[in-house]
């Protein structure tokens, strides 16, 4: 059946089985390839998107569970204040290497910062521990989140 969902502020309709993971709707049906496939089992975090502002794993989120919730993906996260700061900090701090996991990292970090302007190391660990980086960019991810939080503080 057809499902109506809202992605990055735009209403979309997709005709797939209700148990189809959101990840494949985004990537293969709608052609939004910024959200990455890493494991399909919510183990790596590469597929992270926002559902009403919360970070979720799109690979295990079925399309019939989305309902009226608003989906935000990496393609539009820069339009949110926290997302823009995170992206800038990622560039300033040169976080990415191969970059394949970074969409998911940025989505998790943006959700964290949107809900917690001054995350502690423990907060960062809690929010980011589900996002794996095979290049090992974790130290820079942590520093970039702090950098983004500071830039947020400066702007008041």
């Amino acid at each position, binding site marked *: 059946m057809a499902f109506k969902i809202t992605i990055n502020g735009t209403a979309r309709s997709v005709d*797939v089985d209700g148990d189809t993971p959101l990840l494949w709707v985004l990537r293969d049906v709608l052609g939004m390839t*910024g959200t990455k*496939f890493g494991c399909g089992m919510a183990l790596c975090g590469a597929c992270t998107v926002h559902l009403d502002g919360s970070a979720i794993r799109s690979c295990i989120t079925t399309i019939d569970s989305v309902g009226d919730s608003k989906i935000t993906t990496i393609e539009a996260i820069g339009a949110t204040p926290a997302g823009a700061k995170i992206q800038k900090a990622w*560039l300033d701090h040169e976080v990415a290497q191969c970059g394949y996991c970074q969409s998911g990292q940025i989505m998790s970090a943006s959700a964290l910062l949107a809900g917690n302007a001054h995350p502690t190391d423990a907060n960062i660990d809690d929010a980011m521990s589900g996002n794996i980086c095979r290049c090992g960019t974790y130290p820079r991810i942590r520093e970039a989140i702090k950098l983004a939080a500071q830039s947020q503080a400066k702007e008041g």
Partner: protein
Amino acid sequence: MIHHRIPSCASYADLSRRNFLINSAVAGSGLVLSLSLPFGQGKAGGTDSFAPNAFIRIGTDGEIVLTMPYVEMGQGTYTSIPMLIAEELEVSLKQVRLEHAPPNEKLYANPLLGVQATGNSNAIRGAWKPLREAGATARVMLISAAAKRWGVDAGSCHAEAGEVVHAPSGRRVKYGELAADAARMPIPKDVALKRPEEFKLIGTPAKRLDASGKVNGTAIYGMDARPPGVKVATLAQSPVFGGRLKSVDDAAARAVKGVRQIVRLDDAVAVVADHMGAAKKGLEALKIEWDEGTHAGLSTQDVARELEQATLKAGAIAQNIGDADKAMANAATRVEASYQLPFLAHATMEPMNCTVHFRGGECEIWVGTLAIARLQAMAAKAAGLPVEKVMVHNHLIGGGFGRRLEADGAVRAVEIAKQVDGPVKVVWTREEDIQHDMYRPYWVDRIAGGLDKDGKPIAWNNRFAGSSVIARWLPPAFKDGLDPDTTEGAIDLVYALPNFHVEYVRVEPSVPRTTSSSRRASLMSWRRPRGRTRWHIAVRCSTTIRERRPCSIW
């Protein structure tokens, strides 16, 4: 910043390397001139853009395109290589656009490897001179063109920030405006390279050129290729290496919404669908029966036992310093132990994938690979086509670690695509990616150490057994039972040992081949840091020696 050549499928009716370069350049920005091709005439003819070599193309619109002979997988190659060229070309990194190199061993081979591959951590070493020369050559020709136009001595002109400047008169002209003239200049044979003290870019902390796309979702990896009309397939390969597909009941799979086709291969089955969700659901709905073959009972322990036994036989002598046997005989304490390094999968963040459009007489491939020419050759063989009929588009790589030096995934995708009408992206599930990785070899090291009465190590005997990746991947480099890759780390320990003897026994796992062209002759491949993982052995062994664990004498 990085331009991806995904031209329309219809433009390759008459496919050849030459046409590919020209066509794709037209699709990009201006013409690639003949000199960048194997059939080059030694002079950059043409009337539009300027392409003095295979790495640089300057359009009359001022666009500067650099073709990357090495692949970006996180190591920064797409910043460091442009720095080498831009340094000598006298342009800023903000002025360049990057393209992935197409397969062409003649133009893009790593001079240190002899093949077009990104590996062995030597891209910068390989590129250091030739790519600076490429930039300098272009610069000299641009300066010559400007000097000719102005009627001044080329020696009175210099280049800076994408312009040629004649300081005495204050005149300056942009590279783009010189492109057509520069293309007609003779190509200088020897060009002077900058001295290190003249470097403006090299040695500076440049910002990565691939960074922005990686933070906003626009970076395109092989996984993200979407040629028009592409279907998505996922597959199950025989869970036992060497096994075959016996039967498959696909009734339930065919009933899954979005599933289009079931492809049967000799030792695998694939489900082709509108999207990966349907393909996975279809795959799970298949009732597959495998003929597991003669290796159904083979275990990791069996492999380890075979290697352990092999270390009892004499091997090829990889290193011999002093007289280890004699020193061992005189040692006050002797210790011996056997160590095993397990099979390891690469587990790249981006699971294996490859997109193929097989059109009968030609084949087009979208993939992220570290060895594009090798992949092209193997894909061509699988497709039953000459290599010039196989076009390969490279991509950013979501993790290499050696895995993407192998072309097994592309071969598999071609086999599937041959049965599919239209382009198909073959995506391995994570489970498939791990189970059917080409693992780092299992190695068994038997190591004996001798200590003098003061506890100082005086003798070292190491014999190890396992697979040689080089013997399969680059056979000429395997000589007299040895290759520098397999013995790396074993023959050059960080410890100074006066009596040091190392032997290697090559043992390839006894996994049978099947008739399928994709069935691997070997399951083993490189996994970073390759031979250097042997340092773990050395460290562990030194611990053994320090602990003076009692054991038999070798």
